[in-house]
């Protein structure tokens, strides 16, 4: 599925809850519980994302020209947020990830606008994912 298709799927999923914030959060928490967990060996300080009130570890690797992300957090709502981000971009190419705007975030009406969500670390997570993508892209171009 393309990034746009996955984002649409997420938006539709959350639309089912209408104005029921509890339902939305319960779904988010559930997504967090089922997300692709980072391998314990990668839960190191250098993989910690700064700027979050909670701890967030993010790991990425290249598989068949696609970037695969895994993560974890000590806060369950934060975990749900990362699970959504990972669902959108994991398994996509570096180029696609770098240009992703994560339009679903504003549409699901759950998390505040990107620019103000400093406390839940959303901005830092998105930034780190894009930086990882950029690093892989540069690695690839050096090879060429």
């Amino acid at each position, binding site marked *: 599925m393309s990034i746009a298709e996955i984002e649409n799927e997420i938006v539709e999923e959350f639309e089912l809850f209408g104005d029921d*914030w509890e339902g939305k959060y319960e779904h988010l928490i559930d997504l967090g519980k089922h997300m692709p967990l980072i391998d314990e060996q990668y839960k190191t300080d250098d993989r910690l994302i700064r700027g979050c009130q909670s701890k967030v570890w993010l790991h990425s690797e290249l598989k068949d020209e696609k970037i695969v992300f895994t993560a974890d957090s000590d806060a369950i*709502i*934060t975990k749900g947020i990362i699970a959504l981000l990972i669902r959108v971009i994991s398994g996509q190419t570096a180029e696609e990830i770098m240009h992703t705007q994560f339009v679903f975030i504003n549409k699901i009406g759950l998390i505040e606008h990107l620019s103000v969500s400093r406390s839940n670390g959303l901005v830092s997570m998105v930034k780190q994912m894009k930086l990882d993508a950029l690093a892989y892209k540069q690695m690839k171009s050096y090879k060429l």
Partner: protein
Amino acid sequence: METITNNSTLNIQNIRQDFPILSKNVNGKPLVYLDSGATAQKPKQVIDAISNYYQTQNANIHRGVHQLSQEITIAYEHARATVQNHLNAALSQEIIFTSGTTESINLVANSFGKIYIKSGDEIIISEMEHHSNILPWQMLCEEKGAVLKVIPINEKGELLIDEYKKLLCNKTKIVAVTHVSNTLGTINPVKEIIALAHEINIPVLIDGAQAVPHIKVDVQDLDADFYCFSGHKLFGPTGVGILYGKEKWLNEMPPYKVGGGTIKTVTFKKTEYAALPLKFEAGTPHIEGGIGLAAAIDYVNEIGLENISAYECELLDYATLKLMAIEGLRIIGTAKEKASVISFIIEEIHPLDVGTILDKQGIAIRTGHHCTQPLMKHYGIPGTIRVSLVFYNTKEEIDVLVNGIQKAIKMLK
């Protein structure tokens, strides 16, 4: 439904009418504002004073010959006198307007530090200080080669006075401690702390940011050398704060920032600085801040700090018992003397998650390390959920909080 008794003489519902923001809805729910420790809400008396200043009084102070300038100069100096009376300072020139507690402490660390601190000297702070009362001293120590000494705390969150006594010595040059802990609510025995330092002629700075909204402060009775607080935590505007300093210290200390208003005469060879308090007030000050702060102090005094303390004590007891009854909840900071601040954690749930779910229910609390990372390290926790209560809060709001926490636990476990 259980009826809630209220022993206070205060009419809280009338008081709440004074605070326009308290009738606001947040996330579709009536706002329950339990974060006054971060910043307090403002009564309309303060909002009106600021609005009135811009509509009828605006001019620069201490400069103009014209009527408006003279009138606002009088009003601003009246605001200073209001602060002076409120703290029971001996002299009005001992009251310096700053931008807040942070700037007040930075002023003393820089100015006092410049002339009195040298290599090998010691500065005493405590383990429960806000970063604002750690970093200026830490930076000063790094610059001068001085040493920062830290008074430890016990598990309840009380300062170990015996340890403090051991730290005091002939190398000590200043002691800087908080009156009330922003994270734990502990009210420190500052009068005793000051007296002990004075036995060996060491001055003491008290960070009063979290104390002034809750308790009556008398700087002469405390015998504090410096006392700092912020306007916005005392129901006044942001961007204004106070440094009280004993005249003898302030006279000896050099200006910390210089510019317009701080001088007597300027030539390119030599400048003679103005007398107190203007020596420390460079540039056009936060005039409406001073006016608004005076209105806030008048407002608090009209209600009466004794009434406020008594009611807040009732709120604190009520909230403490209700919160303790929640399974898995642990209160951090159980000092015998406490202001109406409660920090807690819930087993296996991150504070941030609880804060998020409470926010969705219109309940404003604070989560995190509260700018007291060394204290968090002491307790071995990443952060807490902090509830800070003031006189406009009610027991009904505490019930809403307790229900909100129970809902959060149910969702997050």
